[in-house]
């Protein structure tokens, strides 16, 4: 006996995860934690893609999820290299102290 889960529950879960990612992105001040919040948002979007893919009975959403994963991997590699460079030059991980582009 299986009970079906409404599709909207998946979308609501996706929205909650995305909102938490935005909150982390805005309120945290450690560069690495901010970066992890971005990954959280990407994961939330992936869940939406897969849920819609199920609803439409098409595999295309899975392909988009796959591409998002590839982009996330590339972004993580470059972003962490940037974090390493920032830390090497400034010895800090606080985003408030890295403000050369401000004004």
């Amino acid at each position, binding site marked *: 006996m*299986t009970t*079906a*889960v*409404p*599709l*909207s*529950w*998946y*979308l*609501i*879960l996706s*929205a*909650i*995860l995305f*909102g*938490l*990612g935005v*909150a*982390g992105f805005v*309120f945290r*001040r*450690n560069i*690495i*934690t901010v970066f992890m*919040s971005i*990954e*959280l948002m990407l*994961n939330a979007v*992936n*869940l939406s893609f*897969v*849920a819609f*893919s*199920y609803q439409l009975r*098409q*595999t*295309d959403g*899975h*392909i988009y*999820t*796959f*591409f998002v994963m*590839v*982009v*996330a*991997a*590339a*972004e*993580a590699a*470059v972003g*962490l*290299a*940037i*974090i*390493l*460079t920032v*830390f*090497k030059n400034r010895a800090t*991980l*606080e985003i408030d102290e890295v403000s050369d582009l401000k004004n």
Partner: protein
Amino acid sequence: MDIFLFILFASIAVFCAVNVVVQTHPITSALSLVGVMGALAVLYLLLGAEFIAAAQIVVYAGAIMVLFVFVIMLLNAGGEAKSAGRSQMVRWLGIPLFTIFIGLLSYIVQRSVPAGPGVSFGQFTGGTPRDVGRLLFTQYLLPFEATSVLVLIAILGAVVLARKEIE
């Protein structure tokens, strides 16, 4: 059974996501993020996306998060200092307002999504590696090749950035 699994793993995902945002130490956040990704992989399986679930575990929880943990340990990142200069209003109003926002969003989503038969495990079997691979190498061949170039550029960029000293 479906609804039980969904509620179990959705609550694990939300709990771990809250932990990612709330914890002050980056390594705790990283491990919580691994929890989110594992729970999401189970939800992908429930949605019939077998290949994506495996890729989620291998690529996200395996490769990307190891990179994160590696950098955190390399930089010996400690906990965040207590937030100074941030108004108390943010602290007390943030959580209730966030909850209200999520509630409104859930209401809108609930209203706007048509009530279909719902998601039950095994109803959609188009997410096997065979289906994904066939689509990836026929219809989406050009984007696939473009991502390979993107990854190559990212590798080169990471190498150049990590070894160059900026004065």
